[in-house]
């Protein structure tokens, strides 16, 4: 009693392009908080939360994060796009806050913009790419095309896949980079059909990905040609495309199948409350909240500086098992997964097929100086 | 006698500019009235007020029995009062024939239709499919008159129909106005060309500074003409 409460600042999208994923993140963090409070709090402290809408833009995101932090809710969590996370990370010292990244993948967040007070509890692009390099070797198809969003993440994904595939003796004759916000993919689909490849590496985001998949189906590109997805078989995309993604393999950041005691407990509790399995975004956000709570427990303090110090280099029991928070760049060293969209118990969702251990994670970026 | 148009003590404004000061005027069925006055006294404003293009603030406008409280540009024509506007206002992107058809928008039945107008102005038939604005000024004026006739109106307001026209065309128009009037259509002729007024009108109202300052009969004589000119020079 009398201990200072844990004050969480939940920043995510209630409106804008990422509203749907934002909703998932908010739900899962709230769930984690309610659960903690029901069990008597974290480190004997009550957890309080305030949330704000980042509108999907860095400017608004920074604004609400600052407001929350300055109001004392200085353990921040939740933004989706890297741009918002970068804008928040940049200001943590100024606001005396700490930040837990649960969805943003940009390498900058653990590279030149790494901060002592920001922690990434999800996979970075570099981690995904390391896995892709491994995975490409095992793919059976010989001839690939790349279809990726024309910005940093898509380009990185597409180019590293091409390199990885070519080093393992496969050919990638066609790479298409599509402007963000493209509605009509038919010109690209025509080229893909024309190229006669066995499979297509797809690195597209949100609405664009959904539009692509729907139109690919409409034009008969799939299922004839296989899709291989980088962050494609996420729950919300699978749900937005009918049955089109069934059987599609791809990277997946979290699934309810992960075999760890904490995950089992989480999935059971979640099912009890929502009568369905948690989605990938929900799992990642819940995991991030747990890392935050572990930090408070380790530090026995709610001061962002103390929490950050305690977490750096710590061993943590997470949904993904026992993991290290790498001291060099505050990246949680997660195992990574390749799965497939499959119908399980009447629901189409990603199911893990292959797990890549943390040992393949590349070394921390030399740009990160904390 | 039935009054087709009655203006009773109207005041009209363009924004804050007070143009018509308590003007009264009426035109009866079959009558040929001239509204005269020098440039800028507000003759066009009388028309614009009836059309709701100048703000009516005080006074009453009646079209037949119908009182116009809030005039809108389409109301007059729907009550059989059409305007041949100053400057003709031929609709640029419509052909000659379409401009005529536009005149029949209210769909009143009567003597006038496209073939009848062509009979009156054969030149328009020759140019039926050219854009209205490609006509010469005189031809445009004929088109504007023809368009007004297409509505089979009971009263036509002619706002300086001979402005910028050669005397021969003025003569021709004078004949046509008389012909139209003899078929029972009343005319309100707004004009500065007094030689036309004496040939067409049977009664005049002279305006100065936004109100009617004199009125009386018109005869097709030199004396009447002189008389009118002194009124305009007020």
């Amino acid at each position, binding site marked *: 009693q009398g201990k200072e409460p844990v004050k969480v600042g939940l920043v995510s999208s*209630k*409106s804008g392009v990422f509203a749907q994923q934002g909703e998932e993140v908010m739900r899962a963090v709230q769930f984690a908080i309610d659960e903690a409070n029901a069990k008597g709090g974290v480190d004997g402290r009550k957890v309080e939360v305030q949330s*704000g*809408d980042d509108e999907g*833009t*860095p*400017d608004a995101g*920074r*604004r609400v994060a*600052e*407001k929350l932090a*300055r*109001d004392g809710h200085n353990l921040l969590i939740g933004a989706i*796009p*890297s*741009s918002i996370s*970068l*804008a928040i990370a*940049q*200001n943590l010292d*100024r606001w005396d806050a700490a930040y837990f990244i649960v969805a943003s993948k*940009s390498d*900058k967040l653990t590279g*030149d*913009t790494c901060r002592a007070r920001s922690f990434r509890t999800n996979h970075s692009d570099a981690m995904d790419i390391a896995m892709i390099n491994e995975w490409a070797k095992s793919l059976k198809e010989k001839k690939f095309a790349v279809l990726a969003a*024309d*910005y*940093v*993440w898509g*380009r990185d994904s597409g180019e590293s896949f091409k390199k990885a595939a070519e080093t393992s003796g496969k050919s990638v004759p066609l790479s298409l980079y599509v*402007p*963000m916000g493209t509605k009509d993919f038919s010109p690209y689909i025509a080229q893909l059909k024309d190229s006669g490849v066995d499979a297509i590496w797809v690195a597209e985001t949100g609405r664009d990905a959904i539009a692509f998949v729907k139109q690919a189906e409409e034009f008969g590109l799939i299922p004839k040609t296989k899709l291989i997805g980088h962050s494609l078989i996420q729950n919300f995309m699978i749900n937005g495309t009918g049955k089109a993604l069934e059987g599609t393999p791809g990277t997946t950041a979290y699934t309810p199948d992960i075999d760890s005691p904490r995950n089992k407990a989480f999935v059971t509790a979640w099912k009890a409350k929502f009568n369905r399995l948690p989605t990938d975004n929900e799992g990642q956000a819940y995991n991030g909240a747990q890392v935050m709570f572990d930090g408070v427990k380790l530090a026995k303090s709610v001061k962002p500086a103390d929490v950050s110090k305690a977490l750096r280099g710590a061993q943590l029991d997470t949904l993904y098992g026992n993991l290290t928070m790498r001291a060099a760049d505050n990246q949680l060293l997660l195992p990574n997964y390749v799965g497939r969209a499959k119908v399980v118990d009447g629901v189409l969702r990603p199911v893990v097929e292959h797990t890549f251990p943390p040992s393949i994670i590349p070394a921390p970026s030399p740009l990160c100086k904390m | 006698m039935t009054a087709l148009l009655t203006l009773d003590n109207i005041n009209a404004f*363009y*924004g*804050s*500019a007070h143009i018509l000061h308590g003007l009264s005027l009426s035109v009866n069925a079959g009558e040929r009235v001239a509204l005269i006055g020098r440039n800028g006294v507000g003759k066009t404003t009388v028309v614009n007020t009836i059309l709701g*293009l*100048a*703000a009516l603030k005080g006074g009453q406008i009646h079209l037949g029995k119908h009182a116009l409280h809030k005039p809108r540009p389409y109301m007059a024509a729907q009550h059989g009062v059409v305007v041949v506007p100053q*400057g*003709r*206002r*031929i*609709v*640029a*992107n419509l052909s000659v024939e379409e401009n005529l058809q536009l005149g029949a928008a209210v769909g009143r039945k009567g003597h006038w239709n496209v073939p009848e107008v062509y009979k009156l102005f054969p030149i328009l038939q020759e140019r039926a499919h050219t854009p209205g*604005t490609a006509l010469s000024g005189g031809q*445009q004026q004929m088109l504007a008159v023809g368009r007004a006739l297409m509505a089979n109106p009971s009263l036509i307001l002619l706002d300086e129909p001979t402005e910028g026209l050669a005397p021969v065309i003025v003569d021709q128009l004078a004949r046509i106005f008389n012909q139209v009037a003899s078929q029972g259509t009343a005319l309100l002729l707004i004009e500065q060309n007094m030689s036309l007024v004496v040939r067409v009108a049977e009664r005049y109202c002279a305006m100065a500074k936004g109100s009617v300052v004199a009125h009386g009969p018109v005869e097709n004589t030199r004396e009447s003409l002189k008389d009118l000119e002194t009124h305009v020079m007020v």
Partner: protein
Amino acid sequence: MSISRIFSFSGAALVAGLALTFGVSSGTVLSLLTQATIFAIFALGVGLLLRQNGMASFGHATYFGSAGYIIGILLQLKAVPAEAAIVLAVLGITGFAFLLGLVIVRVPGIAFGMLTLAVGQMFFLTANRSRGLTGGADGMNIEWPATLFGFPMSAIVQPGHMFMLSWAVLIVCMGGLALGLHGRFGAITEAVRDNEERARFIGIRTLLPRAALFALSAGITSVAGTLTALNTGFVSPESLHWSVSGVALMMVIVGGYKALWGPALGAIVYFLAKDVLGDYANHWMAIFGIALITVIVFSPTGLAGALGRLFKGKRQPRAAAAQAAQATQAKPVKPSAPAARTAH
């Protein structure tokens, strides 16, 4: 307004800002006020163009966001000191806008707005898909040095100081504009706005003043962009997006652009209202949309106009009548109507 009144008003405003800084202890409130003030400068730039030139820009975010990018890139390359980077950004944007203005201010009416929109979207799309230095869609950090103009950075970014700085810049911009527009440049631009043709016939070349005004307006907007870069240390393509321009334009209209301070008022009201209504964030857009429509419908001259009327209740009827006159005059002079010819 006479020159001495401009000075006394500016002085009073500066003192008021100072008092506010010391009166308000909450960092949250100060940082909110800082953002409001920065957007007030942004809106001042957009409003200037509308007020003095009669032109609405849907693309001023370009100048707002580019300031951050130019500074960010120059600092990252370690090409010049930060102070020089700031000056270069503002001057560079002003110069660019001047050249662009020479070309685009010739295009009349709403098409001008669409042109600015198109130019802005080209910048946005380019920034969004680029990689490397600017970080593309993820945005880039701006690595400010430890000291700026001799002041330690950590002191500058303190909420109170940041607010004072922004407020001072706003007042200086506003006062400077009031002074500048008081004189011949103001008269020329007003004349060109009211009646470009007649302006030529009293011996005024109309292109240069309009381009210069466009540049000035972009320049002021870039000052707001610079302050944002200072305040957040981060810039991303979203700050170039047309919706940002749209929001700024709405601040201008809601505040009322007939008065120089109207747009600034609009920006501040926008931020305060948004903060107060924060709890209804889900419906913020609808609330704002309705508020926008209400203000436009009930006060064509915006909040500034409404306030002005409140203080000197008399002038209103004349202004309204003048507007009605414009409306009736505008009517018959439709492009193709023969009446249009009589315009000389």
